[in-house]
């Protein structure tokens, strides 16, 4: 019943499983930027669709990248 009325959504998939060329590395802020919000928070896998293995690596790499100021901890408040 409830299933019938549910809207069709494109299935989320893990970007790192799907694309081998995407290197998950803290030195690669271009990739990491897609997985943080405007305020600098890490986007949960529930929303981004990243698999749990890659989400774990991703979190670690984001935290390293923050240490060397490649990506922000938080957005600047004006």
């Amino acid at each position, binding site marked *: 019943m409830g*299933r019938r009325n549910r809207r069709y959504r494109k299935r989320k998939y893990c970007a790192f499983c799907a694309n081998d060329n995407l*290197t998950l590395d803290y030195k690669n802020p271009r990739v990491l930027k897609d997985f943080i919000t405007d305020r600098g928070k890490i986007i949960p896998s529930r929303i981004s669709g990243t698999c749990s293995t890659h989400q774990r690596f991703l979190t670690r790499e984001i935290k390293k990248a923050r240490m060397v100021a490649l990506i922000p901890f938080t957005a600047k408040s004006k």
Partner: protein
Amino acid sequence: MPITKSYRDEIGKEREYEFIMILKPDCTPADIKIIVQRMHDLIERKNGQIIKFEKWGKRKLAYEIKKNNEGIYLYLRILGLFDLIPEVEKLMRMIEKVIRYMTIKIDDTVDPEARSSEFDIETLDGNIEEADVDELEVSEKDGEVVIKKVTEEDSKETEEKEAEEVTEEKADSEPETDSTETEDKPEDTKE
């Protein structure tokens, strides 16, 4: 009594570290050379080895560090034993030009003879490219991580490509939006 051996390390194997340091933006080439020279001397003394040295150039920091909004990034790969890194970090804390440093262990069973060093202190020049590096791009090639600097021209090209991809995606997603109107379609019930 000082610790002379780490029991975790295999005999004849060394550890490989990645080392990043951020220098103040007003560093001259001579300053950079002195800093690297000091580091090189220390590592030599500790029987370690610098196997790679890279200058990422002047880059905008994501946040302010010690009142600096820009920094010069230097990237090194070091081979050494466990007692090397505390010494290196101690040196980094003493040099005022260094505003941030970070060490990461990549591997702890590296055969030091199998790895050749690309780094030579004699040929080092401290010149930092004038053009500010916008972004870094890392890709893996035969197991080695390659770091490519993306200049502004490159980033424009990729942006164009991305824009094309986005338009394609939009075309794909059109039927999706239509599906909201026809909710009772049997296809929609499937997940």
